[in-house]
């Protein structure tokens, strides 16, 4: 289990909302802090690493969980700039 400083719930949102909400939320973090983005959109598995690569933030990892409503993805992003 990864530890995050701030958690962002994007459950129920489809692309591009999780990424847009992430780009807004990351501005509130201090350098080095880790943001956990919770999503049920499978696209985030590929989109979050791609977003990190473009913006320069660090993708720490991705966890998958099986919930009642379906699969849930937790992406951990470290603010690096």
């Amino acid at each position, binding site marked *: 289990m990864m530890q995050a400083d701030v958690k962002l719930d994007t459950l129920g949102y489809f*692309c591009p*909302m999780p*990424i847009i909400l992430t780009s807004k939320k990351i501005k509130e973090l201090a350098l080095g802090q880790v943001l956990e983005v919770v999503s049920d959109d499978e696209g985030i598995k590929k989109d979050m690493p791609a977003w990190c690569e473009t913006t320069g933030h660090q993708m720490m990892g991705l966890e998958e969980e099986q919930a009642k409503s379906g699969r849930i993805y937790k992406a951990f992003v470290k603010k690096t700039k």
Partner: protein
Amino acid sequence: MIATQIEPTVTLAQLQQSKPDRVTIVLLSGDLDKAMAAFIIATGAAAMGMRVTMFFTFWGLNAIRRRGATSSAKDWLRRMFGLLNRGGADTLPLSRFHFGGLGTKMMQTVMKQNRMPGVPELMQTALDLDVRFIACTTTMGLMGITKDTLIDGIDQFAGVTTYLAEAKQGTVNLFI
């Protein structure tokens, strides 16, 4: 012999920092599905730190017209055209399965149920993320669309040269 080897990834990162990637999108279509695709790409690119400019021309102008906007053109022909071609981001029809409004209504209901943002919401998000909106003056004139009937937040009123000047520097240029 080369004295200093430049690390390519570093120079690329530096280049991107000094000059962010530019995206230009031309929205010609006034269809709900196509406008959605355009705004999703625009907001996604903006969230990735790219500089995005959207050009609205022909039917695409309907997306940035106020709801129910007609025309305040001086001649009756264009006023009539404006009356027949009502604007508004939330009134765009689907390109297929519109079925006189029924199909579009169904799609909008499904989108709402799935918390999917519609064109008006995506457009507001785009504006919040500093996506630049440019309205094509030629087609505005042609279709009797006047400035006062467009939404607030239009950055420029310009033509093809402005578009090409931007597109020339763009790494992603889309025509939708």
